[in-house]
């Protein structure tokens, strides 16, 4: 044997084992196991801050997980490799089956076996009609009942009818698997040409669909960040409605928008589950929160910080925390960092702590802690805008402000004023041109799945021979599986046949079905990809 043929043989061997059912099963189970870390550990594409926090808290484990790609499980090479292998295995398994099935669809039901004795159902009918006429009646009845029918005249002159039903089972089975493959392909295409981004937009401010406007942006691999479809959107008003118990019932975001660079004058009301379509993208309302308006003045009264800063809600009471970082107090003086909590409806607990009694801003207040020192803003290390690293800072005071109130000097004579607040909405903008394909593929897969699990494949043969004063018909039937259900169907079919045929002088229709109905498991069942 030459080297090339042996190489080809071993290649064929490994292809065969890759496309075998066992390999596919093992890959399937591995895929299930591989998905687990993605649900238990924070994921970078979803929450990069949580990943950073996790790594810093679990030193060694964090770094090991990071090296293994556990923080981006579904983008990790081993996960992608696993489902790519599964796809290859699936394609390899499907192609010969599709070939086989198209041949079966074009083919004719096979000729009757020599003996019907050992089939799941067999029966003998007698009729006054001649052989050909009787078999014509049988064939017509079976055709009417949507069997694929083949009428044969054999070499020895005998005649038979062969009928088959349930090829749809394999059609459904193949449709399911092709559908699943198409779903995977559609997901991949969507990831390549779609995009998805999230931005926090404060009431009264606008948003243009450019990369810099986003807090997080995942552009498709084939799409540059500067290729986003242009549109503008302004959040005029945000409103949350609550029950008396504080459970939210509705979120409403009134926006103005326009495609391109036009003045936004179209209005819309965004709600959860009711996205806005603009410029081929869709805008979703994901979350909301409060943004206190804080002004910091230096000791001369000059404004050195004046911003509406989004705070992050901590729980259902919407007590929200955030940070104010004032780098430019006075040259030479320490910088000021303020860690603050916005309390929508302030109340005092029994232990003296402040808490929020209600998520809506009925009695808002701001509690704060001020620190002075080097905030490290110039160090070049990226910082979380919602957190203040207090190591190395000196706490210089703290307190509690109502709207309009000004604090005691924080550091270097600077004071902070809690002017008021606005609300913010977290918007998600997304476009996935392939999602229609994915939906169609998923529906095809589901339809195929139901078909392949419901339809049963079975065959019936009828042989006619001349008898006393007419014809003796031998009927045999064989299901691919599920003998019990078939026997009932077979008996009903025999009754129909004997009703359709002209009766013999003495009609005897005796049905002999399998004596013992063997359990379904014992009958060999075919492999499916």
């Amino acid at each position, binding site marked *: 044997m030459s080297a090339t043929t042996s190489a080809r043989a071993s290649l064929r061997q490994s292809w065969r084992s890759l496309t075998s*059912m*066992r390999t*596919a*099963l093992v890959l*399937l*189970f591995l*895929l*299930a196991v591989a*998905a*687990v870390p*993605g*649900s*238990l550990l924070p*994921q970078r594409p*979803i929450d990069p801050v949580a990943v950073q926090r996790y790594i810093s808290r679990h030193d060694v484990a964090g770094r090991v997980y990071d090296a293994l790609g556990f923080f981006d*499980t*579904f983008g990790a090479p081993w996960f992608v490799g696993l489902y790519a292998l599964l796809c290859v295995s699936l394609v390899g398994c499907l192609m010969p089956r599709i070939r086989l099935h198209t041949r079966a669809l074009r083919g004719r039901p096979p000729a009757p076996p020599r003996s019907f004795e050992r089939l799941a159902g067999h029966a003998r009918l007698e009729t006054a009609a001649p052989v050909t006429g009787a078999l014509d009646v049988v064939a017509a009845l079976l055709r009417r009942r949507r069997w694929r029918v083949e009428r044969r005249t054999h070499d020895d002159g005998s005649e038979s009818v062969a009928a088959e039903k349930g090829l749809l089972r394999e059609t459904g089975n193949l449709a399911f698997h092709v559908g699943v493959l198409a779903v995977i392909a559609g*997901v991949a295409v969507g990831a390549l040409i779609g995009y*998805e981004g999230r931005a926090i937009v404060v009431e009264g401010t606008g948003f243009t669909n450019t990369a810099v406007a986003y807090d997080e942006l995942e552009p498709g691999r084939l799409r540059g960040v500067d290729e986003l479809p242009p549109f503008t959107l302004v959040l005029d008003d945000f409103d949350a409605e609550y*029950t*008396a*118990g504080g*459970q*939210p*019932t*509705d*979120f409403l975001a009134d926006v103005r928008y326009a495609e391109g660079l036009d003045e936004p004058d179209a209005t819309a009301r965004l*709600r*959860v*589950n*009711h*996205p806005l379509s603009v410029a081929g993208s*869709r*805008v*979703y309302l*994901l979350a909301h929160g409060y943004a206190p308006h804080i002004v910091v003045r230096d000791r001369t009264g000059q404004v050195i910080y004046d911003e509406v800063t989004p705070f992050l809600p901590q729980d259902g009471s919407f007590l929200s925390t955030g940070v104010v970082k004032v780098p430019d107090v006075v040259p030479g003086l320490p910088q000021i960092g303020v860690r603050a909590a916005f309390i929508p409806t302030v109340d005092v607990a029994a232990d003296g702590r402040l808490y929020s009694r209600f998520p809506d801003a009925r009695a808002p207040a701001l509690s704060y802690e001020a620190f002075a020192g080097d905030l490290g803003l110039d160090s070049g290390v990226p910082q979380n805008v919602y957190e203040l690293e207090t190591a190395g800072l000196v706490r210089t005071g703290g307190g509690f402000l109502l709207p309009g109130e000004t604090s005691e000097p924080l550091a270097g004579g600077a004071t902070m004023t809690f002017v008021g607040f606005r609300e913010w909405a977290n918007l*998600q*903008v*997304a476009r*996935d041109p392939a*999602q229609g394909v*994915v*939906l169609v593929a*998923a*529906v095809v*897969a*589901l339809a195929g*799945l*139901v078909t392949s*699990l419901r339809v049963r494949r079975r065959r019936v043969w009828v042989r006619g021979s001349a008898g006393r004063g007419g014809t003796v018909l031998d009927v045999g039937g064989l299901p691919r599986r599920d003998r019990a259900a078939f026997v009932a169907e077979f008996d009903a079919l025999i009754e129909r046949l004997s009703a359709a045929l002209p009766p013999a002088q003495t009609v005897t229709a005796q049905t002999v079905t399998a004596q013992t109905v063997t*359990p*379904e*498991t*014992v009958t*060999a*069942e*075919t*492999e*499916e*990809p």
Partner: protein
Amino acid sequence: MPAHAGLADLSDSLLVAAVLCYVVAMLGYAAELAFGTRRRALPPIAGGSTETLPDRWADVAAGTTPRPDGRDRAGQIGRDRAGQIGRDRAAQIGRDRAGLVGRAAVVVTAVGWLLHVVAVVTRGLAVERVPWGNMYEFSSVVCLAAVTGFLVLVARQPVRHLGAVVMLPVVIYLGLGATVLYAPASPLVPALNSYWLKIHVAAAAIASGTFMVAFAATLLYLVQDLRERRVTADGAGDAPGRGRLPSAAALDTIAYRVTAFAFPVWTFAVIAGAIWAEAAWGRYWGWDPKETWAFITWVLYAGYLHARPLPRWQGRRAAVVSTVAFVALMFCYFGVNLWISGLHSYAGVD
């Protein structure tokens, strides 16, 4: 605030009554299963003669046909025929009485099911929406689906014995739902306020309930399979109590059929969830923990359906896969909702 506090209270009470029915039914099924042990408890027969048997049983035995297999318990072959028949008959009576208890258990289950249906409907009326908006309500609907599936099965096949194993998770599930997961009647959070709630969650509940029935059949299969194997290993022939429990092969078939029904429903639930996710969050799939576990569950059940027809995976190995898949399903529900924070955190549990 509940729109109709009275109705909500009525619903809670009806659910408690339904659970009580299920507990009673469970005891009934268990009693029917356990009744066979009475045969073991009979006084040992010295010399195996008729005299040692109570007259009444011996009388009954006269003129009756023995069971086709001619013995009642492995390893007790070869005693004299009369004693054998007497003991068989005794077992027969015991079994008839047990059968009565079993049939009564089915009736009690049906009563519990009716109460349960009314409980779910009144809950829906009380909150003026579909009654599956939080974990308490969802648990109730899942169990309703499981009991419905079981009753449909019992109506078609002699599988009453499955009841003990179906009722156990149902009672635990409902018990957890009504205590740990309980949430007072209230309107929906905005994220759930969509008609997809009706479709996606209903499909998920039906699939989960049906998988629960399949799981019960699988568990029973594993037990029965072990028993049949042990008996074969002993070389003693027939399994004890074979007349009571369906054969391992039959249980395996039931588990497969029920799973084959539930799997497309689960597939549909996942697809409907993806469509809803697209409408609510702007992407149809984002590997949120709930989505991930729904995927894991789907993959495992798909593996089971593919594995079972394979000669080398048939039987116990497939059953183990199906059991693991059910554990994943339970984690997808309890684990993800209670321990992992994600977009599906609407449990309504404090």
